[in-house]
């Protein structure tokens, strides 16, 4: 029964990535190489991030919220953006369209994130006798994260790959990307400083990621129209 629960949570956590890959044209164009490369870049980025965190951050004695430390953490979080930039622009891709490239990169990015952050706790925790909602929430969080990463990758591809975009939209694109990049810090703030309980935090993450995805999609299609 508990292994059953583990499988359920694993499906919730990793299923959407697979579904996304197979349902969208990504599978038609065989973009798995791009995703894997993005995942490798994610690994490297995380390593750099870890080193930065270990160098610049104090070990918190208690679980309280320290604004200065959190600011530093948010700044270090922007390393992610740098990693994404590298994955989108510097890596050699087989000639797939920009449209598919950002999706493949975002997917690989989100999948690597899920594997790295969620697989081990899931394996250790969800197989136990004790039932908690934690792993189900974690799975939903993984879904929100996928949406978030795809939006960020979409905006990234707009910022760095697309040359001719409407001038008026540029500040909006940068603002949205900024919001997306600080999203992890925002949720951490909600969880730790405001003491929100997991269901609320997860609901917020889900809602915010959907809203951001909608905005990003609108921006993306708005940029696409004049170019054609």
């Amino acid at each position: 029964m508990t292994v059953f629960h583990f499988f359920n949570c694993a499906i919730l956590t990793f299923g959407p990535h697979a579904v996304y890959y197979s349902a969208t044209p990504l599978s038609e164009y065989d973009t798995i190489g791009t995703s894997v490369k993005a995942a490798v870049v994610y690994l490297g980025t995380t390593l750099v991030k870890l080193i930065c965190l270990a160098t610049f951050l104090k070990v918190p004695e208690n679980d309280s919220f320290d604004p200065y430390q959190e600011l530093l953490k948010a700044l270090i979080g922007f390393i992610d953006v740098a990693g994404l930039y590298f994955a989108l622009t510097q890596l050699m891709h087989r000639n797939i369209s920009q449209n598919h490239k950002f999706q493949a990169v975002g997917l690989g990015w989100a999948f690597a994130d899920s594997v790295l952050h969620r697989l081990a706790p899931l394996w250790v925790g969800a197989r136990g006798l004790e039932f908690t909602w934690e792993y189900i929430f974690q799975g939903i969080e993984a879904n929100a994260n996928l949406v978030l990463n795809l939006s960020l990758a979409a905006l990234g591809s707009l910022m760095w790959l697309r040359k001719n975009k409407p001038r008026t939209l540029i500040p909006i694109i940068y603002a949205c990307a900024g919001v997306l990049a600080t999203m992890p810090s925002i949720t951490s703030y909600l969880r730790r400083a405001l003491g929100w309980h997991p269901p609320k935090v997860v609901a917020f993450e889900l809602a915010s990621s959907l809203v951001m995805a909608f905005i990003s999609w609108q921006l993306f299609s708005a940029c696409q129209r004049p170019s054609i």
Partner: protein
Amino acid sequence: MAGRWSGGGGGGEVVGSIYSVLALVLILVACVELGDAATAVDVYRLIQYDLSGAPYGSRLAGLNHHAGAAPFAPGADLSRTVVILPVRELNLTFLQEYITSKQPLGGLLLLLPQDIRHKSAGGNKSRNVGLLRSILSELEQLLIHVNLPYPVYFAYEDDKINAVLADYPVYFAYEDDKINAVLADVRRGDASGQPATATTGGYKLVVSTPEPRKASSPTITNIQGWLPGLVGDGTTQLPTIAVVASYDTFGAAPALSVGSDSNGSGVVALLEIARLFSRLYSSPKTRGRYNLLFGLTSGGPYNYNGTMKWLRSFDQRLRESIEYAICLNSVGSWNNELWLHVSKPPENVYIKQVYESFSEVAKELGVSVGIKHKKINISNPRVAWEHEQFSRVRVTAVTLSELSVAPELLQSTGGLYDTRHIVDETAIHRSIKLVAESLVRHIYGYEGKNIQIFADNSSLAVNPSYVKSWLDLLSRTPRVAPFLSKNDPIISALKKELSDHTDEVHLQHESIDGMFNFYDSTQATLNIYQVASVTFDLLLLLALGSYLILLFSFLVITTRVVLRMISRDDG
């Protein structure tokens, strides 16, 4: 090189290596034993013993079932349910019914109220405590005299039961509230009409402990101290007075049987009397012409088996020199009346003498001492009082006790309710004074004179802090003889204390006579898991499946169909 890297073959290699690393990590993680105890609670198992071959008590130790709480629907199958019963609201007839009808239970978890562990504040609780005491002793007698083919455990209730019982969400409950939270939750589940094992999941209680094994040749240890009198004027053999108390206990939960009153109070009184007389005997001027023999005997609950073996080990001369023996039994919670239990008729010269000296001192202390005569039946193996063992070897002996009637086998032996808070220190003081004064009058021949040797505030006064500290120590230490090793800390402590006050202290190790067999694993840790039922996981799987299918269709429609339509329009 870069070209190779970006090629499809290179991607495949990378994927392959990632998979192998992943597999390695998974194998490593799988090897790590999961210590996923959600909540751990200390539990104490009901005693398991054989009495002349017949099994009694809880016969199993391992537990792995769902929790359930009363009331149950009549005829409900509880063979896979751990029934949680708070003793505070225990319905004894319900339990009795279950036991007598031999209905199988998955297990039984009895929640003891905290009151019996801590001294309750305020006087209005004392009646409650009295009621609780009678319930607990009844429960104890019920449980130790039946054979229960399932595990039975005791645990303490937590403090904040009321807060928890009032719809307090379990999710945010404090860790140490868990057991009450569980109870409240289980109740809520039951009240809503669904059994805990169906769709709601509920709680699983797990005690993983090895099968209880027979305790190998349990020993009982008697401790003896000797205070020699002043030999002089040509007399070679001084008469001896023995002061005896049995120190071990027996109760439904061996790990909780501290026996503060039975017979911690007697032990404390004996130690204090030994201390007082050692001060008197330390100077030759005040040393009496009596030897004093102090005995802390074991095996009290088992017909004073240890006392019998101790007496048998005496040589003839010593046994004959004993003028009389005073056995102290439960002298810590009386108000105004103590009883002197004898097995010779009260008209007997020696008995009369002892009784008179006691009642004389009692009058001065403003208490009364009654006398109770109970003949011994040699053919009956039951020995109700410790002095009866002395009487069987023809030594005059009396038992001083607050109990007016002889207890049955395994009754009043320091069980569940017999904890520190029921013992009154002033009662012990008065008992000590009573015994010490009457002894001193007998030894120095002051009978009939109103002289207080151990008057308060004198240098020979009863020391309240000494009494208190020993009482506290004994009230913390379970002392069920089969589970005490030969050099258990409490035995060493008693030996050391007696050797501080008396000479020639020695231990006597004996084995309990074959009638009793005991089984170990008296204490365990109960893990409480909140579990989801299979139904929940099935529903979850169903929901997830439909979610993924919906997502798939949504993505197909938005990305392929819509985009293709757009591009067709554009084209």
